[in-house]
């Protein structure tokens, strides 16, 4: 197998692995649109990185975190419904990011690779950083598993029971920002949430506990990465979208199975 294909596979698997548990929380907490908004603002992060000559990965994480904190603060105002707010910010930040790209003097940016990923161009160093970040995020989720689940089930109850809700939520935002930063190369900003939401939704059909759903989400995501890369190799289709489409097809197949626990 060609080296670049092996690197692509490794990078994709790393992102899929961490997307399972994180995606489960995105689905349980109904944060899909929230994740989308953060992902769109990642483009702004890349622009900021180029503008201020910071490593794009770092800039993306910082911008996503700022966006997440800003969103949480705005949600508390309750003047606008959350999805309206997200709709405003999601598309404004995407538009701002695109314009910022064009305004950067001298920089020729490959927009398509940012929007839809460029897995074949992934370097060994990038693959390594994907696995390091994935490992860190998985560790954090494992460590905070019970409080994370507790605030997902009932925030007030968790707080009365002594969970530091603000801190745990901030950690969840941090992991989301980190995963967006590493997933950009794989599927691009427009398709990142798909990689979290679709495998988790697929896993729901087979899982009888939250932990099982998180693990099965990773498995479904990793199968989708393998299928997508293979399909892209055989039919010469773009890799990021092929991975997402594979995940979507897996979900369709999973529909054939009746959801467990829904009979009760």
């Amino acid at each position: 197998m060609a080296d670049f294909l092996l690197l692509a596979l490794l990078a994709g698997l790393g992102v899929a692995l961490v997307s399972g548990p994180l995606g489960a929380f995105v689905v349980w907490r109904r944060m899909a649109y929230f994740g989308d908004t953060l992902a769109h603002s990642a483009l702004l992060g890349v622009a900021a990185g180029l503008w201020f000559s910071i490593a794009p990965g770092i800039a993306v994480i910082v911008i996503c975190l700022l966006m997440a904190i800003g969103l949480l603060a705005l949600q508390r105002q309750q003047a606008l419904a959350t999805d309206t707010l997200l709709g405003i910010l999601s598309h404004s930040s995407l538009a701002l990011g695109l314009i910022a790209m064009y305004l950067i003097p001298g920089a020729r940016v490959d927009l398509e690779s940012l929007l839809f990923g460029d897995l074949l161009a992934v370097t060994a160093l990038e693959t390594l950083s994907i696995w390091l970040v994935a490992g860190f995020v998985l560790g954090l989720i494992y460590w905070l598993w019970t409080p994370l689940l507790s605030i997902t089930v009932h925030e007030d109850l968790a707080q009365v029971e002594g969970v530091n809700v603000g801190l745990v939520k901030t950690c969840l935002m941090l992991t989301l920002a980190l995963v967006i930063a590493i997933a950009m190369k794989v599927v691009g900003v427009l398709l990142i949430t798909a990689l979290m939401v679709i495998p988790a939704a697929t896993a729901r059909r087979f899982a009888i506990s939250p932990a099982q759903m998180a693990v099965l989400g990773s498995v479904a995501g990793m199968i989708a990465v393998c299928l997508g890369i293979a399909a892209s190799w055989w039919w010469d289709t773009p890799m990021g979208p092929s991975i997402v489409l594979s995940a979507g097809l897996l979900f369709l197949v999973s529909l054939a199975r009746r959801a467990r626990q829904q009979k009760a």
Partner: protein
Amino acid sequence: MQPLLNSNDICLQIAGKTILDHVSFQLFPRQILTLIGPNGAGKTSLVRIILGLLKASSGTVAFPRPLRIGYMPQKLHIDATLPLTVGGFLALADRHRKRCRDALERVAISHLYDQPVSGLSGGETQRVLLARALLRKPDLLVLDEPVQGVDVNGQEALYQLITQIRNESGCGILMVSHDLHLVMAATDQVICLNQHICCHGTPEAVSASPAYTELFGVRTALYTHHHDHQHSLHGEVEDCGDHHHG
């Protein structure tokens, strides 16, 4: 006797609107205190302030000695995408399986341990929430509308259970309700709240007081519920005769 909880002159204003106006009361060990009041009277806000979930504009809540608080929220909404069993739900508060099973036993739903939380009936959900509050071995139980979504017969059973828990464990109980008559047998003291404390005392005294009648009207005070069917523990109607409600 030292009170469990001292609420001193609690005021709450949100966006210039007065939600709570100088609310002061005490809660003693083994006492069941019920907050009643119409919708928007500030009951839930007061409970949230006591739990530390909301900050009062002025006034304090003091606990003379350190307390373990068990909290039963008004409702539980679990997304259907979350495959959580009753056992898993309780494990969030206490990983010890045996203690979780015992807590379920105490609220008489041990058979639900492996059931998904999202498929429970109203009465079952309330009992699961109560079990979780009990897992903390609380000195103070705070119950926000504990019988919400439970049919009337189930409500009586639940209030009996709450009284029984108080008798067995000796904890103090602060409870929110909007219907004095259902809660009458289960409570020692009643505070009638409508931003400020309108009246307080034993349930009999409160229901006879003019302030209470003014707040709820005579119609509510005379309201009774006629039953023409039996309910099982889980709230299913077992024998349906003619159905006339109200």
